[in-house]
């Protein structure tokens, strides 16, 4: 516990020096609840950031997540390299919304510049840890002013590996690919068992495969949209399978320009959230209209993710590439 506090101070000193966006008045977290998730690599000082900027209400289970994008580049790179290495062996399944982005954007990672105000800086990081991600933290913060919100005991967030129950689960991935040849949709619908084609309703063939369980829209131009996969790799595999089916039907299909377009993940933080308080403190990013929709729509700036936050603590994360 003391070690974590020391790291916390270490981190805080570093932060206040470099990051003038972080307001001095951020509530300091004092580790309260014992935390029986395994502490990963606490020798790595950067790893202990998590507790700080987010008033995490999670007492157990823990959020992995170390989003270090707000740190200067050299620190970020260093940690990213380490974690990338580590995450190779980890369960890719738990690689959430952020991971492809983070890996892809590694080189172009700009820094901190959250470009938004201080409260967003503390809250708009998805605590990213390639390997787990959970961009959920910021939602429940209640600023010191609102007694309603309740400042939860801040537990030191040690990044937790996969297996923790609070990691966002990917629910859906939408990707596109180009088969690079003109297709005869009628012929496809005739010769494939798993295809449906109703030109009056929609100008594409709807094809489904069982493993990975996905659906594809195949257009006569040769472009294809693949939806329903639970991970990027599954989406790629599924798209290749669709391309193979089209190939076997006699078309010179290739597999080009595979691109993930959108990813949707969901998560449960297990505690209720005062949406009306959240919209007050994060007005520039939140949109909460209870007359229209029960959830709060939070448009995070960095990374560019949209979160649907509900009062029950369930959070849906989605982001377009």
């Amino acid at each position: 516990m003391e070690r974590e506090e020391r790291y916390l101070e270490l981190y805080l000193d570093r932060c206040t020096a470099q990051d003038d966006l972080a307001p001095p008045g951020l509530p300091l977290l004092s580790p309260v609840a014992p935390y029986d998730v395994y502490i990963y690599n606490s020798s790595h000082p950067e790893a202990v950031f998590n507790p700080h900027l987010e008033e995490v209400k999670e007492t157990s289970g823990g959020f992995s997540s170390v989003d270090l994008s707000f740190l200067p580049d050299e620190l970020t790179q260093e940690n990213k390299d380490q974690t990338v290495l580590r995450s190779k062996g980890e369960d890719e399944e738990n690689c959430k919304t952020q991971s492809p982005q983070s890996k892809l954007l590694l080189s172009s990672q700009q820094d901190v510049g959250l470009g938004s105000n201080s409260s967003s800086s503390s809250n708009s990081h998805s605590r990213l840890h390639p390997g787990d991600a959970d961009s959920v933290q910021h939602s429940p913060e209640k600023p010191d002013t609102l007694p309603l919100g309740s400042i939860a005991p801040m537990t030191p967030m040690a990044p937790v590996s996969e297996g923790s129950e609070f990691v966002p689960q990917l629910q859906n991935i939408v990707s596109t690919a180009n088969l690079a040849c003109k297709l005869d949709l009628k012929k496809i619908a005739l010769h494939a068992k798993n295809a449906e084609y109703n030109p009056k309703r929609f100008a594409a063939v709807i094809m489904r495969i069982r493993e990975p369980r996905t659906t594809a829209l195949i257009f006569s131009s040769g472009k294809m949209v693949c939806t329903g996969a639970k991970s990027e790799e599954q989406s790629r595999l599924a798209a290749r399978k669709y391309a193979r089916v089209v190939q076997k039907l006699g078309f010179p299909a290739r597999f080009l320009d595979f691109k993930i377009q959108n990813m949707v993940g969901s998560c449960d933080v297990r505690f209720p959230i005062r949406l009306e308080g959240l919209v007050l403190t994060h007005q520039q990013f939140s949109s909460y209209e209870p007359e229209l929709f029960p959830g709060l729509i939070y448009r995070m700036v960095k990374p560019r993710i949209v979160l649907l936050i509900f009062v029950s603590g369930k959070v849906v994360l989605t982001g377009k590439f």
Partner: protein
Amino acid sequence: MPGGGRCPDCGSTELVEDAHYTQSQLVCSDCGCVVTEGVLTTTFSDEGNLREVAYSRSTGENEQVSRSQQRGLRRVRDLCRVLQLPSTFEETAVAYYQKAYQHPGIRAARLQKKEVLVGCCVLITCRQHNWPLTMGTICTLLYADLDMFSGTYMQIVKLLGLDVPSLCLADLVKTYCSSFKLFQASPSLPAKYMEDKEKMLSRTLQLVELADETWLVTGRHPLPVITAAAFLAWQSLQPSARLTCSLARFCKLANVDLPYPASSRLQELLAVLLRMAEQLAWLQVLKLDKRSVVKHISDLLQHRHTLIRKAFREGTLEVEAPEKELQGRGPRQGQGKEEVGNSASELPEGKRPASPALLLPPCMLKPPKRVCPAPPASTVTGDENISDSEIEQYLRTPQEVRDFLRAQAAGQAATSSPNPP
């Protein structure tokens, strides 16, 4: 027609402005006599029939504005007048409409959308001035449906980059409750149902605050909560006479629509009150139920802060339990912190006595409909080999193709042939 003109021929006051070959004339609609012709030279008697020229017509400003936009601006002004808004609101709403109109997406939108846009501008203006106008009211006035309205509203807020504050609950309570027809005697209203407006307003406000503290308002449409709170307030002011009146009847008497969720809000509010009642010594012995608790609402409201604190405790982990309960923490305690981690949320409730209960939104108190198991860890790399047999399972054999074609032809023949007599 205003203006007090009379037709010199038949003396009728029904004078209509008409444009004859682009020259505007004032014509009597009864006998057809042309009263004025808009000529430069007029006789003294003719001058009495002249109309005032509005400023907006005498300047050229309207020529730069398209007719569609002019129509929209007129609608904005009309809507503001119908809602009896202060005049400053009108100008702001008009400015928003003009700003929105500069965007090509709005200029090219359908008329239906432009109509709804009128409502959006007025709504945004009201919200920014904390004037409690609900979307439902505007949709009713514009005969628009809420889906169309919500889409346009979200779009315009994003487009104009506006910060629209939330609906002010307290003001909404005041305006909504004032619209209830219970404050004056009327033939349809039994004497015992009439109520004093101030008393009812203050009690409704207190009940709505109570609902807000106990998670009944977050994420829900505000109006049904207020209806339920108003009903309880009204009942509790004279329980003996009013307990027999149902929520639906109350709304009918008050000449107010009963929103569908109001009855479930009512049940939730009563449940909260019952739990609070368990903390009051003199009520514990009474073994209250949902009907009898209404009689004691005034007591409960008087001590509501203490009662909430005592009746609702945060759910605590076994580990933390001793420390937390010993600490006499402030009002924050009871209001929404349930450190539920470890999925132990169900445990404390079952193991604890009737009080304290967990203070959670109702959606969290209900058991989950279905447990979604975490998907099994997948080791897919995306580049695996795809076996032929796997792909072939999705293809039809030639025989199957022929059968399919035959079946399709037969199906089409059946649908296209006329029914046998």
